[in-house]
C-alpha cells in the first residue's frame, strides 16, 4: 500500500468499500420485484423447470443418497449451526420428490404415496438452496456415493427463479441485469468514467475498445462502482506484462446474476456479448476478473461449446500464474507469512489451484497451506450470492468462524483471496471478529509488488 500512501486517496480502502457496499445491498431489498403470477402457476413453473433440467446425471444423484449423514461433516453451514435442516442431503429432498413424482421410473407409484408440491414447500426451500448453500461442493468430497449436491441445489435455484421465489437482493440484481444489462448501475458509461479516473489520477492507461487485441480483459461491478483499486491493479499488471490487451465496453461484466440466481437463460444471455466481443477483436485469451462465480459462468459454461471458441478463457489468478511460470511477471519479495484461500468456484469447482500459488511463489512468499487446503478448502460462507443476503447474516458469520480458525491455525499474517465475493465476506468477518489478519486480493497484491514497471504506469502521477 506504500505507493498509494503518496497519492491522493481517490479510491477508498477496501474496508470503506465494504461498508459502502453493505449500504447498497440494503437498498436492494426495496428494489426487489414482487411476484406477478398466481400460486399455482408459480408451482407449476418450478416443477416444469426441474423436469426440463433433469438428466440421467441428476436422476442418478437423486437416487443414490443413502442418508449416511457424512455430508454433514463437510458442510460449513451445518458444522457452524448444528441444525439438521442444513444437512446437505436435505437440500435435495424436494428435488427428489419432484423427480420421483414426475420422471422417476416409478413415478406412477410415487404420485400415489407422496404429497404434491405446494408453494409453501418452495418457500421453505428458498432458505435451503440460497441462504444455506454456497454450492461449494465440499460435501461431494466426502459423500461415499460422490453425489454432486451443489449441482442439484443449482437446479432448484432455477426452479425458484421460475417460481418467482429468488431472495430479494438477488432478485433485484437479477432483474437489473436482465432488464438493464447492468449490476449496481455499472454501465458502459460507468466503465468509461472509471477508466478516465484511473488515467487522470494514476496515469495508468486502460485501452478500451481496441478493434483488435491479443487479450481481452473483463471487469466487474464491484470494481466499477466501489473498488476502483481492483481495475487499477488489473491495468497495472497487464501493462507490466506488456501484452496487447483491451477492455470491450460491450462485454466487460464478469458478474453473472443469471448463474447466481439460477436463471439459465440469463446466464447464457450475459455470456453471449462477451464471446461476441472477444471473437470480434480476435482475442486469443479472455481474462476473467477476480469474481469467483464468473469463472464457472464463462470458462465452465456448459452451454457454450468450447471447441468453437478461438480463444482461451482464464481466471485472473490463472493468467497471472501462467505469466509467473513463464517468468514474465517480475515481482518483488513479499514479507510475512502468507496463506491462500481457494474460492470454491475457482478451486474445487474450477480447478485453478496451481496458478495462484505460482504467483505467490514468484513473490518469494513464506507460503503456508491452509489445514484443509485445495480440494478440501472450507468455503468462506459468502459464496454463490449469499454475501448479498441479509437474512443469511447469521449463517455467514457463524460459518466464517471455521475459516477464521483455519487461517489462524496456519500462523499466517495475511490471507490472500482471489474473488471479490470471498474478499467482501472475509472483510465482514475481519471487522466483526476484530481479526488481526490482513485480507488481500491477489491481483492487488501483485500490482503492489511489480518491479521494473513500464514507463506508462505510475511515473506520470509521481512527477
Amino acid at each position, binding site marked *: 500500500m506504500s505507493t498509494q500512501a503518496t497519492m491522493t486517496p481517490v479510491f477508498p480502502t477496501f474496508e470503506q468499500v465494504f461498508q459502502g457496499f453493505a449500504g447498497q445491498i440494503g437498498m436492494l431489498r426495496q428494489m426487489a420485484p414482487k411476484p406477478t403470477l398466481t400460486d399455482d402457476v408459480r408451482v407449476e413453473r418450478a416443477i416444469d423447470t426441474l423436469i426440463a433440467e433433469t438428466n440421467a446425471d441428476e436422476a442418478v444423484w437423486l437416487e*443414490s443418497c443413502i442418508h449416511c449423514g457424512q455430508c454433514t461433516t463437510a458442510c460449513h453451514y451445518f458444522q457452524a449451526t448444528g441444525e439438521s435442516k442444513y444437512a446437505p442431503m*436435505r437440500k435435495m429432498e424436494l428435488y427428489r420428490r419432484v423427480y420421483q413424482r414426475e420422471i422417476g*421410473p416409478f413415478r406412477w407409484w410415487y404420485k400415489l404415496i407422496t404429497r404434491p408440491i405446494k408453494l409453501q414447500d418452495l418457500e421453505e426451500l428458498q432458505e435451503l438452496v440460497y441462504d444455506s448453500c454456497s454450492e461449494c461442493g465440499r460435501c461431494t*468430497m466426502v*459423500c461415499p456415493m460422490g453425489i454432486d449436491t451443489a449441482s442439484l441445489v443449482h437446479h432448484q435455484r432455477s426452479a425458484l427463479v421460475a417460481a418467482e421465489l429468488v431472495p430479494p437482493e438477488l432478485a433485484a440484481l437479477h432483474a437489473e441485469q436482465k432488464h438493464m444489462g447492468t449490476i449496481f448501475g455499472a454501465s458502459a458509461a460507468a466503465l468509461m468514467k472509471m477508466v478516465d479516473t484511473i488515467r487522470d489520477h494514476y496515469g495508468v492507461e486502460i485501452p478500451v475498445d481496441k478493434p483488435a487485441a491479443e487479450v481481452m480483459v473483463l471487469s466487474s461491478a464491484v470494481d466499477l462502482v466501489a473498488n476502483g483499486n481492483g481495475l487499477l491493479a488489473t491495468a497495472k499488471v497487464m501493462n507490466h506484462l506488456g501484452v496487447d490487451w483491451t477492455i470491450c465496453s460491450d462485454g466487460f461484466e464478469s458478474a453473472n446474476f443469471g448463474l447466481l440466481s439460477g436463471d439459465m437463460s440469463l446466464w447464457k444471455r450475459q455470456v453471449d456479448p462477451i464471446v461476441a466481443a472477444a471473437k470480434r477483436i480476435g482475442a486469443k485469451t479472455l481474462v476473467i476478473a477476480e469474481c469467483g462465480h464468473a469463472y464457472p459462468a464463462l470458462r*465452465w459454461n456448459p*452451454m457454450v461449446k468450447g471447441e468453437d*471458441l478461438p480463444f482461451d478463457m482464464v481466471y485472473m489468478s490463472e493468467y497471472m500464474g501462467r505469466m509467473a511460470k513463464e517468468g514474465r511477471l517480475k515481482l518483488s519479495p513479499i514479507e510475512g507469512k502468507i496463506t491462500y484461500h481457494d474460492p470454491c468456484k475457482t478451486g474445487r469447482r474450477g480447478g485453478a489451484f496451481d496458478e495462484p500459488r505460482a504467483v505467490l511463489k514468484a513473490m518469494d512468499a513464506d507460503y503456508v497451506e491452509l489445514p484443509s487446503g485445495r480440494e478440501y478448502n472450507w468455503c468462506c460462507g459468502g459464496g454463490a450470492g449469499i454475501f448479498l443476503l441479509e437474512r443469511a447474516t447469521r449463517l455467514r458469520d457463524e460459518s466464517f468462524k471455521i475459516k477464521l480458525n483455519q487461517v489462524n491455525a496456519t500462523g499466517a499474517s495475511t490471507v490472500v483471496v482471489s474473488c471479490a465475493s470471498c474478499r467482501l465476506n472475509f472483510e465482514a468477518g475481519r471487522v466483526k471478529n476484530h481479526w488481526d489478519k490482513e485480507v488481500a486480493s491477489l491481483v492487488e497484491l501483485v500490482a503492489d509488488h511489480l518491479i521494473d514497471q513500464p514507463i506508462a504506469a505510475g511515473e506520470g502521477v509521481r512527477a
Partner: protein
Amino acid sequence: MSLLEFARGPAIHWSLIILVAGVIWRLLGVLVLTRGADLSRPRDAFGNFKGYRTVFSRSWPSGEFTTATRYQTIMAYFFHIATLIVVVGITPHIEFIQSLTGASWPALPNALGVAIGTIALVSLIALIMRRLSKPKVYCSNIGDYITWLLVATPLVTGLMAFAHIGPRYETMLAIHILSVAVLFVWFPFSKLMHSFWFIFSRAQSGLSYAHKGVRI
C-alpha cells in the same frame, strides 16, 4: 403346503422375479434418460477419463475426512464385507446360488460362517445405534428404518436357524428364506439400490470434476 415349501417355492420364486424386474426397471428408467452435455472445453484433453478413478478412490474417505467418518467407515466395511462373505460363503447359500446359476465353489466351515454372520449383525447394530443417537446428522426417514430391519432380519433368522434357537429348524429355515424374499422384494424400491448407483454416481461426479481438472 408347509411354510418351508411356501418359502422355498412360490415366495422366493416371486421375490426373485420382482427383484430382477424391479432392479432393471429402476436402472433403465434412470439410465435411459437424456445425458446432459457439458460443452465447455476440458482442462486437459484426456483428463476426463481420469474421472473414472473416483469410482474406486471413493471407496475410502480421503485423509481430510478420516476422523469424522472413521466409525461409520469401519462399521460399514465390516458390515458389507461380512455380509458378502456370509451370502456367498456358506454351504446352503452356495447351494441356492448353484440352483439359480449353476456356479459353485468351496464353502467356509460353519464356525467361520457363524462368526462372520455375527460380525455382520453386530456392525449393523452398531450402525443403527449411531443413526438413532444422531438424528440431526442422519435425517432418517421411514425407509431407512425399514431397510435396516429387512437387512437385519435375514442375518438374525439365519443365525437362529443355524443355532437351533426358536422354532424348529424347518420353520426357522422357512422364516429365514421368507425374510430374504421380503428383502428381495424391497430391494429395487429402496436405498439398497445404492449397490448399483454408487458406480454411476461416483463416475459422473468424477468425470464432471475431472473435466475441470479437479481430482475428487
